């Protein structure tokens, strides 16, 4: 492994030699790459980034499956490198509300296959005798948690990479990147103060400096340096009797957003409770200018005052050791992103340029592995969709947005965050042409990819009385279950099924593809046949080569060489990246992004045709405008285009109009619908109640890389003759017996032990008769992928993948929710809709 001379070219250049860059180098060489350069402006083994000052503990259980599985996989890797010490981890609660949250931790642990259990105060005291148990209610114990040595792991991974690359790895510390060379939209070279390296593949793994590097190529990685305060207190005589780095579980004092963890004879005390302190990356000092390290500026005393008081309260016995003092104190800088998740994947505006940033110690080895898989073969074993860097594409990369969301998100670390909790800052950001009208109707807006979408309308409160009988037993008495929710959603649903509703804007990603090679290109992207007549629509899975889901979306053929792809707003950025990446270098394929220029209004319900017919120039009869087709539609004065289909299982159209005419479209439909009592209804109906009754799958919930269309029950296209991405794996998946099949379940009994009706919200484990989580033959746990009430079927519905032995209609099972078990039954195996299984309404 040369550490001196930079080669003039390399297959891959990795910028950053922290834990992430080292892991990438190792796993890329494991995947067969043999010509790599790793460079860092700092020295080795600690180049001065966040890796050098982390507290180095790994608590695997999180509410995010993705992060839990990445941490689990990272623990395995640290263990394999002999750099992991299993200590266990203990999250303690000071309040009853936190105890509920810890019960939810147990639930997530079970759902993601991690051990974890509740401890009462006595058990906590026995496990950690120095804890002041007088102020706590109990705790959550995670036995597989522990600590690692990321600097040593980095060395091991570099050595392994060197071995695997057989002389093809160059590691160049003390090397500053001066520029990135981009030609024809692709990365070509990395210019440094030690020379220029030609490369067609470059990964930015530069931690909190990543935005600066990305800017050299004219692209954005949305993160900001943020302070995490940490002090180290010692020597503590209590620890002197114990050998090794750590003999007691890492403590997270959740309600004060702090941790206390033994490190030899010291206690490391870290805090996320202080006011958010964000840095401008340009103010982070150079290595020479920093007394400790660039990412370890001096502690801001006044911000840490409350943290000291809280730490003294929970571990007084250790901190009041007369010999012990504060030996080390820093404002540790780490990377904070607008939603707290990492930023991974190809940066779509520069071919060959990748981001691997905002990654913590606890998930770095696994993320290096997953991103290396993604780079070399196009998909990763662990689905990374929630970390895709493209999720902020073209709306969430401004400095103001990043700072606002980071400040807000910092305060959620260790917080009790409801799964539906909405961001408050930088809103409204993306508003459709309907926004003002919806605000007038007291819409309760939720945000998706920056778009403001009404979740329900307070103006529909009168429907609660009308549907009082239908809603009996389906409203939610528990505060947690009903937080960020309203029974009005259910009433809106009933109104839509009985009359007609208008829904929009959904914030879709809308991409038009134009060019002589588009028909062939589109065929290659989709499972469904796209050589359909002009005016046909195709709902289709989009797969990776492993046969797992990259997306599911609708493709409409607009002309012989013109297609429109419509996808969910949350996936728009990553789908756009996927489609862009697959455009052949020499092909005549142009992508026109219409997401911001077209608005979408759905008109659905038994009366939808009557409403549209009143105002449309064209004939909208079933003969003239059959289901699953698309055509131009002039609505009053508005030149629109419409598809006849529905995600809520009703007759109707999605009408797409130029954003500038959107308000006119809204007013025209609202006026024409008056005599039918048309109601604007929210995404609560569109995304949950209507969808769940129809068994429609949602990307990121039911659909992800780890499941195939066969398992999701989406094989209705069969295997077409034409070649497409993922075809072989897809064909194999159809041939093989499913390891698990997506089912719709309903809750049989909602009553908790104290007699309250409870409603699951999603991500709960499905249990077998022993009370253990069900695991399929591939080692995947069965959990609730989506939960929502179906008012028309009168049930609370859950979707979950179940292995063959449980995937039987009528099978009784249990779901665990907030520490209790509730009986559920399998209603449907596969994708057959529970409501209107023959789709008579859509075809009506």
């Amino acid at each position, binding site marked *: 492994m040369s*550490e001196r001379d930079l080669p003039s070219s390399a297959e891959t250049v990795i910028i950053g030699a922290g834990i992430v860059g080292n892991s990438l180098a190792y796993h890329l060489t494991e995947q067969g790459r043999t010509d790599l350069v790793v460079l860092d402006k700092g*020295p080795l083994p600690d180049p001065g980034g966040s890796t050098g000052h982390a507290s180095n503990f790994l608590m695997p259980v999180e509410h995010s499956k993705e992060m839990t599985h990445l941490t689990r996989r990272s623990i395995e890797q640290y263990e394999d490198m002999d750099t992991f010490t299993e200590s266990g981890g203990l999250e303690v609660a000071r309040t009853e509300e936190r105890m509920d949250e810890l019960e939810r931790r147990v639930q997530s642990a079970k759902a993601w296959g991690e051990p974890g259990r509740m401890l009462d105060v006595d058990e906590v005291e026995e496990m950690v005798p120095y804890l002041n148990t007088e102020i706590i209610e109990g705790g959550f114990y995670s036995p597989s948690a522990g600590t690692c040595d990321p600097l040593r792991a980095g060395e091991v991974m570099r*050595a392994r990479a060197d071995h695997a690359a057989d002389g093809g790895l160059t590691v160049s510390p*003390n090397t500053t990147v001066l520029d990135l060379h981009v030609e024809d939209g692709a990365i070509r070279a990395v210019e440094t103060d030690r020379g220029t390296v030609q490369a067609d593949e470059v990964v930015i793994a530069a931690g909190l400096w990543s935005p600066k590097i990305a800017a050299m190529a004219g692209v954005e990685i949305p993160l900001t340096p943020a302070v995490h305060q940490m*002090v180290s*207190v010692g020597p503590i005589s209590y620890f002197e009797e114990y050998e090794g780095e750590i003999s007691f579980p890492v403590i997270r004092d959740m309600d004060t957003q702090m941790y206390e963890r033994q490190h030899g004879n010291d206690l490391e*005390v870290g805090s996320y409770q202080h006011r958010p302190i964000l840095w401008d990356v340009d*103010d982070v*000092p*150079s290595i*020479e*200018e*920093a*007394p*400790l390290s660039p990412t370890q*500026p*001096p502690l801001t*005393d*006044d911000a840490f*005052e409350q943290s*000291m*008081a809280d*730490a*003294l309260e929970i571990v007084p016995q250790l*901190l*009041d*050791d*007369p010999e*012990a*003092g*504060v*030996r080390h104190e820093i404002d540790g800088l780490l990377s904070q992103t607008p939603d707290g998740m990492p930023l991974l994947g190809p940066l779509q505006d520069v071919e060959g340029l990748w981001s691997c940033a905002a990654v913590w110690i606890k998930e770095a080895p696994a993320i290096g592995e997953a991103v290396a898989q993604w780079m070399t073969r196009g998909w990763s074993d662990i689905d990374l969709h929630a970390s895709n860097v493209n999720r902020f594409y073209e709306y969430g990369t401004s400095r103001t947005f990043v700072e606002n969301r980071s400040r807000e998100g910092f305060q959620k670390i260790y917080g009790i965050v409801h799964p539906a909790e909405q961001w408050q800052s930088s809103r409204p950001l993306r508003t459709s042409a309907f926004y003002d009208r919806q605000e007038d109707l007291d819409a309760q807006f939720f945000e998706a990819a920056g778009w403001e979408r009404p979740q329900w309308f307070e103006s529909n409160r009168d429907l609660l009385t009308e549907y009082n009988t239908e809603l009996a037993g389906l409203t939610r008495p528990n505060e947690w279950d009903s937080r960020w929710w309203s029974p009005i959603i259910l009433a809106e649903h009933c109104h839509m099924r009985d009359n007609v509703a208008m829904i929009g804007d959904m914030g879709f990603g809308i991409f038009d593809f134009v060019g002589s090679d588009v028909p062939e290109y589109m065929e290659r992207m989709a499972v469904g046949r796209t050589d359909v007549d002009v005016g046909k629509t195709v709902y289709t899975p989009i797969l990776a080569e492993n046969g797992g889901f990259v997306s599911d979306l609708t493709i409409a053929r607009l002309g012989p060489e013109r297609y429109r792809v419509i996808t969910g707003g949350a996936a728009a950025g990553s789908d756009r990246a996927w489609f862009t990446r697959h455009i052949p270098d020499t092909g005549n394929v142009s992508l026109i992004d219409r997401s911001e220029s077209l608005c979408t209004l759905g008109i659905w319900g038994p009366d939808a045709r009557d409403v549209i017919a009143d105002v449309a120039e064209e004939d909208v009869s079933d003969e003239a405008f059959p289901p699953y087709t698309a055509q131009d539609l002039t609505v009053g004065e508005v030149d629109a285009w419409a598809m006849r289909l529905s995600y809520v299982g009703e007759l109707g159209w999605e009408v797409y109009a130029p954003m500038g005419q959107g308000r006119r479209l809204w007013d025209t439909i609202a006026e024409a619908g008056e005599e039918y009592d048309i109601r604007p209804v929210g995404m609560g109906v569109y995304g949950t109640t209507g969808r769940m009754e129809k068994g429609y799958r949602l990307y990121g919930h039911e659909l992800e890389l780890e499941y195939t269309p066969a398992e999701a029950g989406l094989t209705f296209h069969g295997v077409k003759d034409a070649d497409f991405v993922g075809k072989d794996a897809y064909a194999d998946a159809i041939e093989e017996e499913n390891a698990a099949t997506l089912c719709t379940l309903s809750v049989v009994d909602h009553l908790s032990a104290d007699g309250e009706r409870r409603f699951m919200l999603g991500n709960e484990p499905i249990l077998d008769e022993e009370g253990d989580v069900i695991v399929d033959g591939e080692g995947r746990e069965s959990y609730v992928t989506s939960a929502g009430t179906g008012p028309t079927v009168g049930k609370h519905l859950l979707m979950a993948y179940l292995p063959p032995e449980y995937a039987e209609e009528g099978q009784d099972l249990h779901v665990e929710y907030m520490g209790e078990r509730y009986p559920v039954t399998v209603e449907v195996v596969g994708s057959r809709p529970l409501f209107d299984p023959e789709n008579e309404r859509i075809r009506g």
Partner: protein
Amino acid sequence: MNVLACIKRVPNTGAKIVLTDDEQRIDTTNLGFTMSPHEECAIEEAVQQTEAHGGSAHVLTLGPEEATEQLRTGLAMQADEATLLEAGDEEWGPRATASAIANGVRELGDDGAEFDLLLFGNESADAANYQVGTRVAAELDLPCVTGIKSLDVEDGTAIARREVSGGEEVYEIALPAVITVKEGINEPRYASMRAKMQARRQDVDRREPTADTGAGTYEKVRLEAPETAESEAEILGDGTDAVANVVDVLESEVEVI
């Protein structure tokens, strides 16, 4: 016995020193502040002497409001009281500083705080003028020894030892006296978390400094930051592979074997 430790807020010097554009000051943007290790020892000595002999340990500085950070460090190290001579943001030379401190000590005396022992660091960590301690002694007409690395007090007399080449000098000084100390006289404690927290809440006595700068003083023209030589590390090998190279370096370059 009451002991006063006088300290100075200085930029943390553990990094490359960058000067401000006017070359009058150190650019402290990235540095953070501290006091010299000698002064940490002065505080520790004050605390230990008063713990041993009774009385009160008092810490004093001349500096801007921000210098309360260093005073609180002293309080967290178990000094009993702290005084800030509020000097604003401008820099004071050693003569003016000594005059202000001497006046401050007189004022404190007028208010009932008489000191038996005035401890200084041997020199400040930034300017290193080596003057303030001796000038204060002269102003207050007190005996003074400098560069002390061992101090014992008995019956109103201090036995102070100074390391010199080949041995040590031992001084017997009647108190009250001024003594400037050097790192090594003791091992300054790390403040405990509870002490740090209490120190944040403790009152700091604030006074307006008065100084006679006198005539014939000198002026600072500018600061210069010397070029630092670039250092490079070479990895000699991994594990046992490195042995031959290490031996080679020890033989031919370091010449220890």
